[in-house]
């Protein structure tokens, strides 16, 4: 059993985040992946900093553009640095990530929605003060 396990090693159908299969890829390829990631992340960062201070684009679109750029950069980090990919050997990692993203979105959207609603429905502070007198 352990013998067949040894033979199967290069064909393992599982993979951990952050791990490159050196059976398939030389270290030079792993280095190339990190370099591509660094280049893309640097490009997205520079665009983010440029867009935040520019008057070239319509003002209200800037926060949306910043959020889109940040999400793109997180994707670059996940793929090129953490090596979370859509390959068949990465299903477990992707499922865990999807669950994490779901919780994060529920937490952020839920908090902002509830608090905005409370703010909207709360009486202005000076009227509350008048009721006490």
């Amino acid at each position: 059993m352990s013998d067949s396990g040894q033979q199967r090693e290069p064909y393992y159908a599982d993979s951990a985040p952050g791990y490159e299969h050196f059976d398939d890829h030389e270290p030079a390829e792993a280095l190339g992946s990190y370099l591509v990631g660094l280049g893309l992340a640097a490009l997205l960062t520079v665009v983010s900093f440029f867009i935040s201070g520019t008057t070239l684009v319509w003002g209200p679109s800037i926060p949306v553009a910043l959020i889109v750029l940040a999400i793109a950069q997180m994707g670059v980090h996940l793929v090129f640095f953490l090596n979370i990919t859509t390959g068949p050997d990465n299903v477990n990692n992707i499922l865990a990530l999807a669950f994490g993203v779901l919780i994060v979105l529920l937490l952020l959207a839920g908090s902002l929605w509830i608090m905005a609603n409370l703010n909207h429905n709360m009486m202005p502070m000076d009227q509350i003060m008048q009721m006490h007198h």
Partner: protein
Amino acid sequence: MSAFEAAAEQEREFPDRRHVPERAAGERASKRIIVGYGFWIFLLSDIVMFSAFFATYAVLVDATAGGPSGRELFNLRNVAIETACLLLSSFTCGLASIGARTQRGSWFYGAMAATCILGAAFLFIEVREFAGVVAQGAGPTRSAFLSAFFTLVGCHGLHVTAGLLWLMTMMAQVFAKGYRADILRRVLCFGLFWHTLDIIWVAIFTVVYLMGAGQ
């Protein structure tokens, strides 16, 4: 023939087809894969914790109580330098993980040392920024906005501090014990931790600094 036997038969016939499950039932994944997956789940739970701090910050960002807002406090040039430090340190951390797995000492120690210096530079700039803001009378007790700001960014800073301690521990362990399988698994986990801190920093410099300074 049961479904399992059919699958096993298919696997024998097409051993090089990647979409066919390669492992038969009962055969275990290697320890490195299990450790990496478990640590990935911990990191996701850490990201969920940070998202709670982000939600708090977003709710309280306008509650300045007559005190200074982000636009008056933030210095984007400092933030750009911090971002560059952390991004480069993420890259050198990747180089260190290649060095560890190919067991090349000069790569591993050199890249880990570079990661350490860049991380320390990031922390130094952040602590200086915090000290400057507190000296202006805008400490965490000044307003709800500043409480949320110090909690969110300070929690990330604490993670970086812990990461630096872990980094030096890993260098010492590889030096003392060599490239043993269990040590390499710890190096893998450290790399994941460090890359995740950079992902959280992307969210911080976008939501806190860029959107705060541009309001």
